[in-house]
């Protein structure tokens, strides 16, 4: 019932706004990132044909795309929350590297089971996120600076922990091997890669959290006007810390998946992931000044980046040129999303 109500409310909201610029234009605007995705998918399906075979649209490749998107997507969901409260988290990539390393080490050398590993690793992510949030709010330091510092700290710990090299994961039932159940994270269920399932599940949970809960309302209010929120009795500090903690946990979740995918935990992985996540959030229409944005937007943003990567790869475009393209797409996407 309330879902219906909500939809009506949003439509009304759209109607209000559309008075200024014309109704259909507004509707197109709101779906712009989806159009962008459609354009890129169309491009990919048309261009990536070799010897009469469509390399992009084949099921294995599509599954690969979603799998590749999942890690960045999961991080980007957390990043969306952080950016909605007008913060930024640069430590996500380092958290991924650290947690992947710790996960490998716990299973291979410390006799942890799957559940224990998962819990311990998520806890580490939560702890770093909590510290990010607590330090930036309590000491009023901009989150950019705090997370820049924790990025360095987390990366340093990861390298120190592992001696600077990756820890390979091999599965088996013996004490010095990783539990087989952990490899589920790199498997498929009904043809869909498990990481993709995680990504979809996490996206749905957090989209619902933002839309249907008090917490979500607070996140938008704080990003929109922090003073007004505080004066309305919202515990701004607490909400912000929670948001950073969530971002840390999701980065750790991405780290678990990363380790399972590569069968190793390397302290040097995840470098630059924070930028990919921010790019996905920005392409998805979230304002970096806070208060405006959605999870579905971010999901689309992550998919756009993923499909683009995949397409350029299939077309054998030079690796370095791929980066150039990606940069241009980010600018174009953000310009197209701009109001007016």
């Amino acid at each position: 019932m309330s879902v219906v109500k909500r939809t009506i409310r949003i439509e009304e909201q759209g109607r209000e706004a559309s008075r200024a610029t014309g109704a259909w234009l507004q509707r197109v605007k709101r779906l712009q990132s989806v159009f962008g995705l459609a354009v890129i998918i169309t491009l990919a399906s048309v261009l990536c044909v070799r010897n009469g075979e469509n390399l992009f649209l084949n099921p294995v490749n599509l599954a690969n795309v979603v799998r590749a998107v999942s890690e960045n997507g999961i991080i980007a969901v957390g990043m969306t929350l952080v950016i909605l409260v007008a913060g930024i988290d640069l430590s996500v990539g380092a958290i991924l590297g650290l947690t992947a390393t710790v996960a490998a080490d716990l299973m291979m050398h410390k006799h942890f089971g799957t559940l224990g590993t998962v819990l311990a690793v998520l806890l580490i992510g939560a702890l770093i996120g909590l510290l990010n949030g607590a330090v930036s709010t309590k000491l009023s330091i901009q989150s950019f600076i705090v997370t820049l510092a924790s990025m360095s700290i987390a990366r340093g710990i990861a390298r120190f922990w592992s001696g600077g090299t990756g820890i390979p994961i091999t599965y088996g039932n013996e004490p010095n091997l990783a539990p087989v159940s952990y490899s589920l994270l790199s498997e498929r269920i009904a043809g869909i890669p498990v990481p993709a399932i995680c990504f979809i599940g996490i996206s749905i949970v957090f989209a619902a959290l933002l839309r249907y809960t008090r917490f979500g309302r607070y996140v938008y209010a704080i990003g929109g006007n922090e003073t007004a929120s505080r004066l309305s009795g919202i515990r701004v500090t607490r909400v912000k810390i929670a948001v950073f903690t969530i971002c840390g946990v999701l980065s750790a979740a991405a780290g678990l998946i990363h380790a399972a995918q590569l069968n190793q935990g390397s302290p040097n992985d995840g470098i630059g992931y924070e930028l990919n996540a921010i790019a996905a959030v920005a392409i998805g229409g979230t304002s970096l000044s806070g208060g405006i944005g959605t999870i579905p937007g971010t999901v689309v943003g992550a998919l756009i980046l993923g499909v683009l990567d995949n397409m350029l790869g299939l077309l054998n475009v030079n690796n370095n040129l791929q980066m150039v393209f990606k940069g241009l797409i980010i600018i174009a996407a953000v310009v197209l999303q701009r109001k007016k």
Partner: protein
Amino acid sequence: MGQDAVLTLDGIRKSFGNVHALKGARLELRKGEVHALMGENGAGKSTLMNILQGAVGDYEGEVFLSGKKVDIRAPLDARRLGIAKIHQELQLVPELSVAENIFLGREPRTRLGTVDFKRMYRETQPYLEALELPVKETAKVGGLRLGEQQLVEVAKALSLHARILIMDEPTSALSESETRKLFQVIRRLSAEGVSIIYISHRMEEIFELSQRITVMRDGEYIATVNTREVTKDDLVQMRVGRAVSDLYPFRETSAGPVMLEVERLTFHPPAGSARKRLQDVSFAVREGEVLGIAGLMGAGRTEILECLFGMHPGHTSGVIKVKGTEVRIRSPLEAIRHKLSFVTEDRKGQGLVLGRPIGENMTLPLLRQLSRWLFLRFRDEENECRKQMESLKVKATSPATVAGTLSGGNQQKVVLARWLMMNPDVLLLDEPTRGIDVGAKAEIYQLIHRLAEQGKSIIMVSSELPELIGNCDRIVTVCEGRVTGEFMRAEATPEKLLSAATFRSEPACQS
């Protein structure tokens, strides 16, 4: 079209989507006149002035400057034509100094091409002196009070040597004495041949300053009249198209037991804060009583309310008692729990989340009650919002309307609706009618009285003395962070309040 018209606007039309903001507006401005522009909120005054200063390029209609047809499509056009505007919403850079703000974009240069600060400061001084503005030209604008900032904006317009000056509510943040100074400047400018378009909701100012008045209603031109030939009632009738009954409703004072008691409230602002200090402020307010706080800008009026609302924990000392029990209020949340509510002076900066729907804005403090476990009960929320919107006559189609799109009066009603929803015992109102139209003002006054009759306590800060005298049962005056006087409604006059607000009863008080 008059012979001596410096500016003529004719048949101006402008639509935003399917809202027709202007439907054939007209204005004729003579050389050296102070021309008042009046109209309710949403009458189209601001849009018309935005067109004139080049902020809205795509309008229909004709603009003549000294008989010559001109096009104003960009702010630079307006500046070239000698049109300057003093904004109601201040457009200053808080991190820059007074002088830097005044000369922003046209800083004097030295031979090396660097900014000639010496000259800039030297050239700033005369403007500050003309306005008798007691700030240094090197002071950061962000550290100044709102009223002082407004005068800096005036100085900036003066320095542009504009031939046409638009003033949109220039006195809304000024104290009486600053208003006097501003009026002197306006008169001098007009004597020098500068034409001034003066927008204000304050009738007294318009009668005092202007030679002619143009009235607008619903985006249309209603009439232009000579100020000497009309009465207040005529104008009100023209603006609203109906007669407005007495602004201040009469109410028997029937104060009950003491609701809120403040003893020796002292506040030392942290270093670098623009807030003023408070010293041993004591007062009490009873159930069903409206208490006014009068004082000049910077006297500490706002700070009293902020301290009561727990906004400066750690810098505040003193005793606060609610219904006889001493309470500790260390955050707005704790204040709300003690059933206090606070309507701030700065609606956009501290009151509303402008980008979100008004419904969400109203229910922010109340979401705990409006949710089951973690999840919001949208239907209850919407009902609650619609109820408040109806009782306060908020003009918006639904609770989903984005707050930023409403007029000032309606935004203020949304803020009030927010606090009324939680059924507070004490309402702290800081300049509750600032920048609001007569119609909306009257409604807010009615509301204040209705709330007092329900037994709520109201503490109201205002720089408009007639407003305080009209609404309050009792008024305390503050000066430099101390209470300097207390008056019952029957004995309060603007003169008495003003002299108490400028007189320091205790001499040894460093500021």
